[in-house]
């Protein structure tokens, strides 16, 4: 009996010790994890702020006429030109009026053809879901799709955005990956006659 109690005590003590040790061993990671979460939240918040002030919703969120006039339809936030929206051919340039845009602010016609604003939500099939941070940063830096592909078409103000810091571009990407995914397959740009 005594031996059994001793064994139990020993076991309990050992368990407590192990628990304490585990707890201690866990302590720094927990702190680190919390710090990481805080940093992540801060990055997302920074990205959200940048997306707001850089007017991303002006073109990448379809506009509707609301109670107060035209405004971005935030139920389709940053999902790009609506795939189901069919458009007649764009009017050609007239005099100095070389560009036209649809009321949604998501389709733009000009000398380059017709461009449709991209789906920036993290939808895997139609948005940025399969993009990497490197791809996103390279796209803005180079003005080429995924940093290597076709040119990013007007009206995307690459000329200004390319001057953003890596930190800011990464924050924007991190925020875009955190918003609700919306499936919306934006059409391929229409090209002018060559």
């Amino acid at each position, binding site marked *: 009996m005594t031996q059994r109690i001793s064994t139990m005590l020993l076991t309990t003590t050992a368990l407590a010790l192990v628990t304490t040790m585990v707890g201690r061993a866990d302590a720094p990671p927990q702190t680190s994890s919390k710090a990481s979460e805080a940093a992540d939240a801060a990055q997302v918040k920074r990205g959200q702020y940048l997306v707001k002030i850089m007017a991303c919703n002006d073109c990448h969120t379809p506009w509707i006429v609301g109670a107060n006039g035209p405004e971005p339809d935030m139920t389709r936030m940053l999902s790009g030109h609506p*795939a189901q929206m069919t458009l007649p051919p764009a009017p050609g340039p007239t005099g100095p009026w*070389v*560009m036209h845009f649809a009321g949604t602010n998501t389709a733009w016609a*000009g*000398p*380059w*053809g017709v*461009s449709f604003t991209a789906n920036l939500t993290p939808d895997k*099939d139609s948005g940025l879901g*399969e*993009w*990497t941070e*490197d*791809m996103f940063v*390279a796209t803005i*830096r*180079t*003005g*080429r*799709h*995924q*940093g*290597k*592909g*076709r*040119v990013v*078409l*007007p*009206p995307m*103000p*690459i*000329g*200004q955005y*390319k*001057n953003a*810091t*890596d930190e800011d571009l990464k924050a924007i990407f991190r925020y875009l990956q955190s918003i609700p995914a919306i499936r919306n*397959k934006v*059409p*391929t*740009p*229409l*090209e*002018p*006659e*060559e």
Partner: protein
Amino acid sequence: MKPVTFWRSCAASALCLASVATIAATGAGSEASVARPGPLPSRLSETGLYSDASSLTVDPRHLAFSPQYPLWTDGAQKRRWVSLPAGTAIDITDIEVWSFPVGTRFWKEFSFGGRRVETRMLVKSNRTDWQFASYAWNDTQTDAVLAPVTGLPGVAEIAPGKKHSIPSVEDCRACHDSSRTEVLGFSALQLSDDRDANAIHGEPLVNGMVTLRTLLAANRLQPGRPELVSAPPRIPAASSQERAVLGYLSTNCGACHNSNSTLAPLKLMFKQPAYGGGLGVVRAGLVRQTKWDRPGAVPETTSVIDPVVIEHSALLYRMRSRRPASQMPPLGSVTPDAAAVDHVTRWALEEFRRP
């Protein structure tokens, strides 16, 4: 001005939206600015390419070479040289990623209609970095001047209404930074002595051009790998046509579409390795549906190769296109490669077509 021409001008200046925004796109202050370990010579004649600049005599110590599967650049005539520092060799421990000694220089001269237009240069400036430069030839063809890092649009008319542009350093790096090595045309496969006689736009080996055999014999490749001569790299293929097509795709698409590129998630693997390559490397990518939709097609029905209507294949559409929004490769040429389109179409019809 034609619309596309106008747009190309816009793309070159990165300022097409004067009515929307008026900030000049100089890139000043951008973190993307290319770091330069040292200033590049302002003239080609100062780069060491020539032993006698007045007669444009190339230094005989430089090694002329010709990759067996050349890149399409609107039919430009090209000459290429590499200069390795005396007594050095290229480390080929990793057969796919050659490590060049510091001080290595590459030159590639582009001519159209017998006139030199530009000469590009790569310099290995330290253990990890390469400098990129391009020199624009003057009208009198006596020398070439360092082009701005933003490139020079429209330097030579190469076809009616089509002009060759000197690419920006950023555009050069878009392809050259997409593999584990910046050097693309000087590799085990490209310099193999088992040279593809049917390579699309293949160039003849001119006397004195180096190959794996001559480089090994001169101890310019280390460690010595006798298999490079006894079993020279060759793309395994069911036919000579397939071999040529795979080689073409490897050079013209594989520079960006390879497993080490940031584009790897697209799962388009066109790069052929020195050994163990072949159709198996690329097949899975070719039969995929693309995220890019062929204009006019029902959305989400476009495949890289369309086995029912081969002509509707994204691969062929984009090879035929030289419009900025759809052309492939997306930069480096302004006219489609008709011969390659023909080769790839015939091969795809035989390999993939099903009723």
